[in-house]
């Protein structure tokens, strides 16, 4: 029972019923747009119709004069912020940019950039008011493509942006915000030893996180300056921090409640509407509700970078990788901060290689500022590398799984980005895939099979939870990281096991920012990893407290009392002195033994173990139309320990589906006018349920020694391998190496016809 730290019923690792499930399937669950307050106003945003324009003047007088309009805000309602980079999870952020993204200041930098906002007594009045705001634009030339944006003479977005990371410091501004590089060994020497070298250039399209729930916020600011905010976010403490900074409020004066979330995938780690709703409410002295339309979500939130990637790999004739070079150019959108750094670090991370050099560029252009998206940056660089790995396997006549196995990173491997890995599970995932019936099933003509592996770091971070033993012995569990993938079920199982209570006697909720100490956001696959560590801490306090109470009740010494098998028990020579007591027993006597029984777990979680995975896909190409059907899909990934296997499998499946969309059809389509043409789910082609087969999930569990249950984060790795796996399957089906995503039907058909690969 004590194995893995469990000492109760053993709910961890079982498929317990999700505590949030009933409300979600009955429609009771409250998402971002479901909150309302008496007297609330409706807020709307005026957005730039131009991809790049100087804002000469904004005249709001006519809008303000419209009956029913209670507040109008513009750049003048927010103080400017100094340029200062601060870590924001897996990405960096700068408040100078945040304040400009929230409401444009000197320039509108992309179509859809917020320029002003109104609050009115109805949506119709708010909409009319937007039309009455008179913005004088001086339209500027724009640049959308990353390679064009890097060219000298390209339209310049920021005249104070000088490329960081190059010596000497450039004397002219450019759209290249940053150059990063990692080096291990000597790639030139490595290539000299190679018998085979493959070099390819790849291009990927920007893709949106595609959460079904649009951004929504309800804010109310009181006359005394205290504020309350309800919104859908992956991190309400982060929202609080950003809003306090942008509005000049004390953190203690803002209370943020996170709603249920209809998907985030990294895209809800930043603020868009929240500071606007607060500023409007402060001005109007009424609650203000704001909800984005789908078009606004596409034009002004997310996405992740599109990129151009060059990869060159060398291997000996028996398959040992001897050198890997890559150059990554990532779109950041209108402000710097693409995930090129993690893209650089992850590119070769799955492999044990002595010589690696990866260079990355962070490039701004007239597109919405990118936001984190599930393993930010990694799917792009690893897609390119996994495609080249497949080509090396083909050139050498080696099995692609065997080749990966031969080069797999394992415990003790030094990663090019720095650390030496602890125990990791890539080989186990490759082995699991190799043993599947799927891998060993024959294919027909026009069908192809592809395999690819993927890596993501995972993080820990600041986390705070509480466990409260109620009067009837039930337990209230409070966490401060929004539950986006099964956190409540996972933490409730851990708490039940730790405290020896039944799973349904633990009620988990996500507390507001006033209820717990600071919690970093849900991201980096951290919330179940860190949260369960904090629960163990909180439970430990309760157990120690109960032991102390038992000593008093039983008149025994501390060494005569211990927590064993879910109870406080007299031990040793005192073993028969008293009846063991459960948490419920202590609840009954809490008042008499010192008052409420509460545990508080707080830590900055360290030791997040990387999670590696391998995906296997079968697909079929229609040679007459270029349409691709995914026939079969298997994911094997190292979860360390799956606290709730069904939720972990769900993460594997969801990541795979998002990767399928990225590989096959999703892309932002811009016209020559710099405007986004497909700002809706009709033409932004995410897969629908009927597009994908049931995704088989294989749980690999190589325990993370730094976690009491062996847990690793699992949420992000699953989106890394699909792009490469599908490209490799396409090559297998058609003999054509596709290097540009998405592999949409027009592109596939064109390639088939050019190569003379047709049905007839």
């Amino acid at each position, binding site marked *: 029972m004590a194995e893995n730290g469990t000492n109760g019923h053993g709910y961890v690792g079982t498929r317990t019923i999700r505590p949030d499930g009933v409300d979600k399937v009955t429609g009771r669950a409250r998402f971002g747009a479901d909150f309302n307050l008496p007297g609330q106003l409706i807020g709307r945003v005026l957005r730039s119709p131009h991809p790049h324009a100087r804002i000469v003047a904004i005249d709001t007088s006519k809008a303000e004069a419209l009956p029913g309009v209670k507040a109008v805000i513009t750049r003048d309602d927010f103080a400017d912020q100094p340029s200062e980079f601060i870590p924001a999870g897996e990405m960096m952020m700068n408040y100078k940019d945040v304040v400009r993204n929230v409401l444009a200041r000197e320039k509108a930098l992309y179509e859809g950039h917020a320029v002003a906002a109104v609050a009115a007594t109805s949506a119709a009045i708010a*909409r009319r008011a937007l039309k009455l705001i008179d913005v004088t634009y001086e339209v500027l030339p724009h640049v959308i493509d990353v390679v064009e944006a890097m060219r000298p003479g390209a339209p310049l977005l920021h005249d104070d942006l000088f490329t960081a990371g190059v010596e000497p410091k450039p004397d002219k501004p450019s759209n290249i915000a940053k150059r990063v590089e990692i080096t291990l060994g000597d790639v030139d020497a490595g290539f000299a030893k190679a018998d085979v070298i493959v070099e390819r250039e790849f291009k990927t399209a920007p893709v949106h996180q595609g959460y079904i729930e649009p951004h929504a916020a309800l804010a109310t600011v009181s006359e005394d300056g205290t504020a309350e905010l309800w919104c859908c976010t992956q991190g309400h403490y982060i929202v609080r921090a950003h809003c306090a900074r942008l509005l000049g409020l004390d953190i203690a004066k803002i209370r943020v409640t996170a709603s249920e979330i209809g998907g985030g995938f990294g895209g809800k780690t930043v603020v868009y509407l929240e500071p606007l709703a607060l500023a409007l409410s402060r001005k109007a002295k009424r609650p203000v509700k704001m909800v984005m*339309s789908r*078009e606004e979500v596409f034009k002004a939130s997310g996405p992740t970078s599109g990129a151009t990637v060059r990869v060159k790999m060398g291997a000996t004739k028996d398959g040992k990788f001897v050198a890997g070079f890559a150059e990554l150019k990532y779109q950041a959108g209108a402000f710097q901060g693409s995930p090129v750094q993690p893209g650089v670090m992850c590119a070769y991370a799955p492999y044990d290689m002595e010589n690696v050099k990866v260079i990355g560029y962070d490039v701004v252009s007239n597109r919405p500022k990118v936001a984190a998206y599930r393993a930010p940056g990694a799917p792009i660089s690893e897609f390119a590398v996994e495609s080249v790995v497949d080509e090396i396997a083909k050139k050498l006549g080696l099995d692609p799984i065997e080749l990966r196995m031969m080069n797999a990173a394992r415990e003790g491997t030094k990663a090019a980005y720095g650390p030496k890995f602890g125990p990791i599970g890539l080989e186990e995932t490759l082995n699991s895939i190799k043993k599947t019936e799927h891998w060993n099933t024959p294919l027909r003509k026009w069908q192809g099979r592809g395999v690819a592996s993927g890596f993501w770091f995972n993080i820990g971070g600041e986390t705070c939870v509480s466990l409260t033993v109620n009067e009837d012995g039930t337990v209230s569990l409070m966490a401060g990281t929004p539950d986006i993938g099964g956190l409540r079920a996972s933490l409730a199982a851990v708490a039940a096991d730790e405290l020896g209570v039944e799973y349904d006697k633990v009620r988990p909720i996500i507390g507001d920012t006033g209820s717990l100490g600071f919690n970093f956001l849900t991201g980096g696959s951290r919330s179940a990893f860190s949260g369960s560590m904090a629960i163990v801490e909180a439970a430990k306090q309760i157990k120690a407290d109960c032991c102390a109470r038992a000593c008093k009740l039983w008149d025994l010494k501390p060494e005569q009392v211990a927590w064993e098998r879910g109870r406080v028990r007299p031990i040793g020579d005192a073993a028969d002195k008293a009846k063991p007591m459960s948490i419920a027993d202590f609840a009954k006597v809490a008042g008499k033994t010192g008052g409420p029984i509460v545990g508080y777990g707080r830590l900055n979680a360290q030791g997040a173990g990387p999670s590696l995975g391998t995906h296997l896909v079968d697909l079929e190409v229609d040679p*007459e*139309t*270029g*349409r691709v059907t995914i026939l079969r899909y298997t994911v094997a990934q190292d979860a360390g320990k799956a606290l709730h296997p069904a939720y972990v499998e769900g993460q594997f499946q969801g990541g795979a589906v998002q990767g399928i969309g990225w590989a*096959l*059809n999703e892309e932002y*389509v811009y016209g020559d006018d710099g405007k986004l*043409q*497909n700002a809706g*789910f*009709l*033409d932004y*082609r995410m*897969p*629908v349920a*009927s*597009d994908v087969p049931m995704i088989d999930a294989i749980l690999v569990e190589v325990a993370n020694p730094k976690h009491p249950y062996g847990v690793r984060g699992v949420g992000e790795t699953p989106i890394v391998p699909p792009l490469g796996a599908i490209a490799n399957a396409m090559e297998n089906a058609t003999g054509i190496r596709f290097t540009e995503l998405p592999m*949409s*039907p*027009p592109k596939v*058909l*064109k390639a088939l*016809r050019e190569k003379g690969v047709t049905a007839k």
Partner: protein
Amino acid sequence: MRYEAPETVERASALLADSAGEARILAGGTDLLVQMRSDIVDPALIVDIKRIAETRWITEEPGGGWRIGAAVTGAELKEHARLKQVWPGVVEAANLIGSTQVQGRATLGGNLCNGSPAADSVPALIAAGAVATLAGPQGRRDLPVEDVMLGPRKLALGKGEFVVSFGLPPRPPRSSDAYLRFIPRTEMDIAVVGAGVSLTVDASGTITEARVSLGAVAPRVLLVREAAAAIVGSRLDRVAQDRLEAAARAACTPIDDKRGTVEFRIQIAGVLARRTALIALDRARTQ
């Protein structure tokens, strides 16, 4: 904005004719309401035609023809076993629109009058030889469906005129129809190319009559007579298939857009015309 739900054709037509501002007809609303929410249209008057009984009927006429109300939904068509047997292509086309939920609202009349060259039910109706019955201040008139739409969002309807119902002709023995569209996904999408084929075969399996219609390859849905001529008199052998593909492609004047390139659409139009004709032929032979 004014909302009216008249119960007679005459009243509806009068409301439309007398409206000073922009007037829109509401049937299923699956296009109109979305366009209103997206700020694309802002009508002063909405005339809901669903309370007009004849817009809601499906009737098999004594001579074997059919009359389908303009506000009949895709789901209602699908549940009509007899209609589905006689006009499977029309029914399957209407049931490719949107999702299952949307099909519970979306109507044939709305799909046509939305004026999109990519409307799924329109090529099927044109291939079927459907005639739209219009009502207006000057009374009623019939117009072949291929003549209703003039271009994107442009209809051949006069002020106050609206589509009341569609007429489908009697079916000779050994006749059937089919509709296929190309989308990159499996549903919830809009046709990159659509193809409707209706045909009749004789006892030997030779095609005696055919109509071929293509959607999303020109500013309006096309009736491609050359494509029909390419297969009439054949048993749709390989040579006839190639002629059909060539004729279909020759009729296309598509644009490059977010949904597909010119080259792609032309290529696919041929493939779809052939595949659709083969399905229709198979259905006609087993009728």
